[in-house]
């Protein structure tokens, strides 16, 4: 019997084309991927989506070129945690994942789909950058690469945008991660840079390795462009899925409550918090006692560790936590921690995630080094972001909250829905030692007898402590509530549920002048 029906012929042709597209680039590039523990783009997508199935647009892009399957990018729509998401994923087996005109058009179109459907947009990046030979078709035009970034900015705060960085993200392409809400980077493989080490050597004469200049670890610890450092691609994908569990599909929807879990077993808050205001302790241990076990998603864990920022659940309710970490740099706020706090607040506020501030802060850093680095304008970013957030804001004064540190951590003047103090709280312009020194230094120096001098100083410390006594502040209605540390978790859970309906109109104007 002969196979002569036209239908069979059509289908065979289609299947041949599809087989070629699904195979990606040349075998040698697949092997190279394997050697560096990288997955093929379609295997990444199988891991990402719930049921390994997804709908793909522009699959036949550049099919006539024969050697450019899908034109080096897969653009797809599928389900993650049961919710629809849009994805663009570079195929680095095809011309190193570089962008031609159709690559760019596909990315723009999937972004437009995400915006129309009002669903999260994920960027799985592994790309050498522009195909310079194709530049006129993909770089400067109206629907060129610039449009990708324009779309990202437009969609920011509308739908969640997540970047998973598996390989390089070079030159202009490095702005894809920069405009995302969060960037997850694979240690050893992911990198971001505007100019490659080779270009740096040629243009400015610097000799540097890729890892030093733009490696995942550098970006997650030093530059702060990366948010989450992971060891493998599988981990990157599971972290992205875990992150998205906390978010609604778009800004108009509130995040869902999930099943409550108990906090991790551990020491009581009473045992964790040292009485001496100046002694360090580990704020992570305290957070563990407040949140549902295993729910804390740390953002920028390795960057500016003096401020912890992460999303968690308390009795199943989502909450964004900002907490000073006394163990790192004394919990003092720096320019980097201010940037970190500002971006985190913007993220939570955009997607209706209430904010919880856990204050134990000696203030913003002082000295020549930080002033020259512009700590005032960095601090202003943090305070502005906190001040303009309209989601429920709960401020907890754990221990000290001095100076502008109190302001940054949603102190009473910034309209937190409640300002709760633990009995260990101490609110003041500055700590007792610094304050007594500032006010009485002439008098102290004038006392010649050392014993008498010490007595005088101690007496002044005592008076100062009485003046800033937390019950006095509660009596003056500066703080709203004093809570026993072991009751804090249940108090927070209750408050979060009471504030669910918060609805604050935005001031009438175009937008503020952001202090950047």
């Amino acid at each position, binding site marked *: 019997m002969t196979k002569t029906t036209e239908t069979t012929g059509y289908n065979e042709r289609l299947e041949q084309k599809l087989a070629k597209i699904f195979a990606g680039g040349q075998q040698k590039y697949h092997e190279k991927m394997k050697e560096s523990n990288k997955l093929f783009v379609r295997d990444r997508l199988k891991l990402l989506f719930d049921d390994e199935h997804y709908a793909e647009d522009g699959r036949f892009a550049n099919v006539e070129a024969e050697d450019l399957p899908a034109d080096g990018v897969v653009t797809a729509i599928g389900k993650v945690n049961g919710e629809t998401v849009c994805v663009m994923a570079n195929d680095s087996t095809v011309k190193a994942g570089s962008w031609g005109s159709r690559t760019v058009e596909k990315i723009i179109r999937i972004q437009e789909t995400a915006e129309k459907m009002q669903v999260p947009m994920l960027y799985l990046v592994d790309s050498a950058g522009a195909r310079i030979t194709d530049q006129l078709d993909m770089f400067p035009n109206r629907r060129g690469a610039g449009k990708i970034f324009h779309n990202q900015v437009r969609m920011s705060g509308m739908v969640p945008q997540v970047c998973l960085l598996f390989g390089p993200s070079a030159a202009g392409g490095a702005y894809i991660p920069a405009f995302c809400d969060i960037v997850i980077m694979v240690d050893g493989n992911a990198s971001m840079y505007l100019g490659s080490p080779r270009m740096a050597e040629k243009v400015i004469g610097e000799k540097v390795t890729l890892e030093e200049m733009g490696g995942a670890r550098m970006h997650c610890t030093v530059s702060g462009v990366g948010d989450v450092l992971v060891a493998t691609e599988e981990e990157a994908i599971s972290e992205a899925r875990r992150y998205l569990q906390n978010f609604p599909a778009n800004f108009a929807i509130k995040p869902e409550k999930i099943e409550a879990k108990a906090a991790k077993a551990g020491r009581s808050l009473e045992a964790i918090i040292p009485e001496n205001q*100046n*002694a*360090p302790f580990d704020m992570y241990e305290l957070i563990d006692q407040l949140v549902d076990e295993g729910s804390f998603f740390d953002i920028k864990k390795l960057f500016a560790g003096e401020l912890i920022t992460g999303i968690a659940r308390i009795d199943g309710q989502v909450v964004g936590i900002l907490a000073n970490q*006394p*163990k790192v*740099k*004394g*919990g*003092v706020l*720096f320019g980097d921690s201010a940037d970190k706090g500002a971006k985190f607040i913007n993220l939570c506020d955009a997607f209706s995630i209430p904010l919880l501030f856990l204050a134990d802060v*000696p*203030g913003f*850093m*002082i*000295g*020549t*080094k*930080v002033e020259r680095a512009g700590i005032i304008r960095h601090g202003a970013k943090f305070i502005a972001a906190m001040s303009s957030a309209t989601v429920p804001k709960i401020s907890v004064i754990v221990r000290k909250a001095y100076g502008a540190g109190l302001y940054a951590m949603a102190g009473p003047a910034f309209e937190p829905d409640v300002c709760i103090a633990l009995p260990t709280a101490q609110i003041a312009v500055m*700590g007792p*030692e*610094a304050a007594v020194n500032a006010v009485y230094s002439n008098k102290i120096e004038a006392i010649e007898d050392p014993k008498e001098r010490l007595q005088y100083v101690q007496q002044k410390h005592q008076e100062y402590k009485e003046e800033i006594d937390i019950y006095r502040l509660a009596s003056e209605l500066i703080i709203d509530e004093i809570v026993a540390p072991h009751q804090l978790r249940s108090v927070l859970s209750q408050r979060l549920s009471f504030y669910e309906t918060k609805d604050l109109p935005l001031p009438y104007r175009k937008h503020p002048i952001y202090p950047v």
Partner: protein
Amino acid sequence: MKELKASMAGTVLNVLAAEGEAVSAGQAVLTIESMKMEIPIEAEFGGKVEKIHVEVGGFVNEGDLLLTVGE
């Protein structure tokens, strides 16, 4: 040989390691007092302390060399 540098400006409150002593990554080797806080400085890497470059009571600025640690 690796260098441990000050993460912030402050005064050296105490030195917890001695020259010639073996230290491990994460071990507190120094305390800096800054902004009235006691700030433990942990070794970022293990090795033998070759030289301590600061003394108790001295001021260190951010980025100043504190210790050199050998293999």
